[in-house]
């Protein structure tokens, strides 16, 4: 049986392995079990936390290859792709899964082009096809209006990026589980970069939209910039992040990093609360995979109610303050 392995591209920041890596382990375990092969992880960085690497093994990876150098501390496409292509050549993966993160969505296509192979972006579904043992990749397209299932029958490795937060992070199977951890210092010639990272400006919001478990999205129904504080109060009461529809961002009431939708961020939180959001197709494309969707809108015909689990038809300026009071009451217990 021609069986080379399933690989995941784990990611780190400041030497700590990021959550997306654990989500990829979950996906990787399912695929490698079905194929009857090993699950391996590759990661690029500098001084990566050893316990975090062992944790990947604890969760089910059989092998972790960490390529480390100061030049790899932050993502830069040239040294990362040179090192990754080097690993592809050495280990010949069958399948590579990466996160559909800002890194993954840049690094994987760059590598797939040189490696002359197929890459499927932003997958929500991954499976192994009976008979061929090929990877079946399902993903949204046309702003989420359709789902497409895609195969890479004749080229290897079969590569996919997986939508963050579309998978539960893997549980630890056993602490101290047996596995191989290989730490490599790459040759200097792989580390050149025509791009320099000279600094970082953190987001104004305390909570990153991508990681937030609870997101309150404010739409045009809020009517004025000053009223946004009401939505922010709701977000604070819930302990969540504040985001906006395109209408709100276009009016300058909140900045672009807050925008959720087709031409903004895609989020998949545990709870989405739409305040004065009508629910255009373009907005739905950015949030319809949220676990629980709540909508507050004065128009009973608003599209948002079609994808919501629970909706309140009423004046948000009355409903939201009442909701904030209710949440604070509930939290007392």
């Amino acid at each position: 049986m021609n069986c080379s392995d399933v690989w995941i591209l784990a990611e780190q920041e400041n030497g700590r392995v990021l959550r997306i890596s654990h989500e990829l382990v979950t996906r990787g375990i399912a695929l490698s079990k079905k194929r009857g092969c090993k699950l391996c992880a590759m990661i690029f960085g500098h001084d990566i936390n050893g316990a975090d690497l062992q944790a990947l093994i604890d969760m089910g990876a059989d092998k972790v290859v960490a390529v480390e150098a100061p030049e790899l501390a932050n993502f830069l496409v040239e040294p990362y792709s040179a090192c990754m292509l080097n690993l592809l050549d050495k280990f010949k993966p069958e399948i590579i899964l990466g996160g559909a993160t800002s890194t993954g969505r840049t690094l994987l296509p760059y590598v797939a082009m040189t490696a002359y192979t197929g890459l499927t972006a932003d997958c929500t579904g991954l499976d192994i096809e009976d008979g061929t043992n090929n990877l079946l990749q399902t993903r949204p397209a046309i702003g989420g209006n359709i789902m497409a299932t895609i195969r890479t029958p004749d080229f290897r490795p079969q590569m996919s990026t997986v939508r963050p937060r579309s998978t539960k992070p893997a549980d630890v199977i056993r602490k101290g589980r047996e596995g191989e951890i290989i730490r490599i210092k790459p040759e200097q010639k792989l580390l050149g970069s025509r791009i320099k990272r000279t600094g970082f400006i953190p987001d104004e919001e305390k909570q990153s939209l991508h990681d937030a478990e609870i997101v309150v999205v404010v739409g045009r129904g809020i009517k004025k910039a000053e009223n946004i504080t009401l939505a922010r109060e709701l977000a604070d009461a819930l302990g969540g992040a504040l985001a906006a529809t395109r209408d709100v961002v276009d009016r300058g009431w909140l900045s672009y990093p807050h925008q959720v939708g087709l031409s903004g961020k895609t989020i998949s939180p545990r709870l989405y609360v739409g305040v004065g959001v009508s629910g255009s197709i373009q907005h739905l494309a950015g949030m319809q995979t949220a676990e629980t969707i709540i909508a507050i809108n004065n128009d009973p015909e608003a599209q948002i109610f079609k994808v919501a689990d629970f909706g309140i038809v009423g004046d948000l300026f009355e409903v939201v303050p009442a909701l904030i009071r209710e949440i604070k009451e509930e939290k007392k217990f």
Partner: protein
Amino acid sequence: MRIIVPIKQVPETKSVKMDEKTGTVIREGVESIINPLDLYAIEIAVQLKETYGGEAIAISMGPSKAIEALREAIAMGVDSAVLVSDRAFAGSDTWATSYVLAEAIRKTGGYDLVICGERATDGDTGQVGPEIASYLKLPVVSYVNKVGKITDGVIAMQRLVEEGSEKIEAQMPCLLTVVKEVSDPRLPTLRGKQKARKSQIPVWGINDLALDPKKVGLAGSPTKVVKIFRPKVARECEKMFARDEEKIKEAVGKLGNLLKKREIL
């Protein structure tokens, strides 16, 4: 300075329909527009050539009507355009598309910058920008949300990532993919539209480019679509009307219970 702007003509998302029986997207009667996110790339390209002098060239791979999108780019201030079109290219995935576009970019001559929109609103992959850069062996800076100064062949910019923005400097030639925040696209001017109408836009087919015919089109694409289907988006929505104080109390109470039950509160 020479700037290349690859653009794409896409179906208007709102009007896309699917033939459930055949599992294919219905293209007839669907309006075609310039990929909205490409407008930002065009805007930045025009701004840069206005600041530093030089020219901006738009290039697109598509069926013959994609020439309308190229005329729109010229109307916004791009100097010239090229359409890359051939039946042999139909059905190309991102690898095959990037291959063709990269070879076409090569054929236009030297360049300092290639600027792409973040992604196209039909395919939604965002892969073509980085793939063109990879093929042309250019560094790529993705998700650029601010373009700064160009000094001695180095371009300063900011890149939008999950937790904030990175400050970046890149040696030219390089490829950028830009996000909406980068600038506000200008409207085409009357003069621009007149120029666009009169512009000669060459059409390059497979024989005009240095391409391996086995690597283009549906047959040459590493990825293959197996099927398309409509996603199950609708949920059972419990809708409560809350038009008076009592009903509001009832509704938020029920919501509070729901959130507690789902362990969110």
